[in-house]
């Protein structure tokens, strides 16, 4: 079973839920797809046994063969190539690696080379197998790195995916083709507003979902009313507690100090299975 933990709004507690869930399950793999700001490893402190670079492919123009016809730049949907009178400029950070430019070039002047966008790290801690991506600072292409993290998925394991915040392509890349999505929200107007957008993404993708309300007791009741209207189950409430906030601030997953919560995460898993 593949469970994604997502939220829309940042800082609602995705990583807290994903890590504590992973620590409560057996035979589990945690994939941290928040490649811009991965945090699961801070809570898990894994021993890293493998680091490997992730590349995308970008065009290389042979100045010898190129006759500056401009077909490549006309084709490129991402404005990653610019052809002037006697030169071709490639903007690798805009390239999506579709390979179209090489296909349309009548002179076969285009080949491709690897460009590193980040790394994948693999490790293990407390019985959890962790894989996470780390986007190079200054790099904009997070989706190929998210896909590379997801390619490490082991289907014979219970997989938990920690998704990035937001509701755009990075979320879609993380949650697409997973069995269930846990939406972590807080009972505030911002939490609710971003939750609604995320619910729309999941409906469009056809991924079943349930809500975990973090920092319950703060804010108002509108998130609860919304979930009832939309028939979205509230799987768990994590109360606003200075102790939990303080544990998080020190990088301690709260099930480690409050083991009674493991049972609650297992109940969530059982509710999802039903």
């Amino acid at each position, binding site marked *: 079973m593949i469970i994604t933990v997502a939220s*829309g*709004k*940042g*800082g*609602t507690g995705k*990583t807290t839920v994903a890590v504590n869930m992973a620590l409560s399950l057996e035979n589990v793999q945690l994939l941290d797809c*928040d490649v*811009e*700001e991965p*945090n699961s490893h*801070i*809570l898990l402190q894994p021993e890293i046994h493998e680091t490997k670079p992730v590349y995308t492919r970008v065009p290389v123009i042979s100045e010898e063969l190129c006759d500056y016809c401009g077909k490549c730049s006309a*084709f490129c*949907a*991402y404005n990653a190539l610019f052809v002037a009178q006697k030169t071709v400029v490639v903007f690798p950070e805009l390239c*999506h*690696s*579709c*390979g*179209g430019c090489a*296909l*349309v070039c009548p002179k076969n002047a285009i080949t491709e080379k690897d460009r590193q966008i980040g790394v994948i790290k693999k490790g293990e801690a407390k019985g959890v197998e962790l894989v996470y991506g780390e*986007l190079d*600072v*200054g*790099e*904009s*292409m*997070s989706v190929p790195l998210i896909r590379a993290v997801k390619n490490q998925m082991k289907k014979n394991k219970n997989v938990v995916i920690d998704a*990035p*915040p*937001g*509701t*755009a*392509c*990075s*979320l*879609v890349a993380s949650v*697409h083709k997973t069995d269930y999505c846990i939406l972590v929200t807080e009972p*505030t*107007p*911002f939490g609710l*507003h*971003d939750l609604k*957008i*995320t619910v*729309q*993404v999941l409906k*469009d*993708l056809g991924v079943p979902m349930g809500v975990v309300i973090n920092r319950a007791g*703060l*804010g*108002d009741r509108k998130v609860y009313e919304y979930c009832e209207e939309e028939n979205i189950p509230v799987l768990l409430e994590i109360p606003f507690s*200075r102790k939990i*906030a*303080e544990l*998080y*601030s*020190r*990088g301690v997953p709260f099930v480690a100090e409050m083991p009674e919560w493991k049972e609650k995460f297992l109940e969530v898993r059982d509710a999802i299975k039903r």
Partner: protein
Amino acid sequence: MMVKEITVLSGKGGTGKTSVTASLAVLTQRTVLTDCDVDAPDLHMLLKPEVLEKQEFKASRVAVMDKDKCVQCGKCEEHCRFGAIENLTIDPVLCEGCGVCVYVCPVAAIEMEKRVSGYAFISKTKYGPMSHALLNPGEENSGKLVSLVRENAKKVAEKENCELIINDGPPGIGCPVIASVSGVDLGLIVVEPTLSGIHDMERALGLLDHFKIPSLVCVNKYDLNEENTSRIVEFCGSNGVEVVGKIPFDQIVTESMVAGKPIVEYSPESRVSKAIAELWKQTLKRI
């Protein structure tokens, strides 16, 4: 007159970017506010903009197949690098709109269709003009929409004779964040005193440094873990970054959010409001 531009960012989500930005809107005059978090925007819930102009944002394309024309040669599937074609069916979620399938199809069974990816808005609020947007759920191209929001803000700033643009940035350090900070005069990082917050702040500072943008840091909810707050101050000190403010934790911030008002307006005498006013005073000296 040159318009100055500041982006509020954080790396980690939920550290208080929008609460701080909304308060700065109250504390400043002749300022254009923008919300550069185009896929999960929240600033409008505090500033309550009245929309004056709405623009369609069409940046992406998606491949559409005419199954009646398809001769099932499989070339599209073979050439698609995004795994978006399986069993001769296009998955619009995975399609990145490159057009390779259209090019390789021998019978012209595939076409690219433009899709509306979102909307940009120019609005007025009681705190000044606002430029914002809404990306359609699950869309790509958030970076391009952020660029449009900032272009609109610059136009409005010139027209309305404003001196400053304050951008509320998205979380992360990827595409939309890069679009939010490129070329600004200052990045103001809002960090929370957690290990994750510190880790993400370091990456956000790295990003600003990469683009040669001056940075300032303020610590939000600093008293939730004073040891980590000291670490932040130390880290910034040894990296030549100034910490311009420390905002205490107070549930009144959540109350003000529920009331739909910036905290400095909702409770001007609160400790939080005073801390924000002080941090803004310090920030202004450094622009």
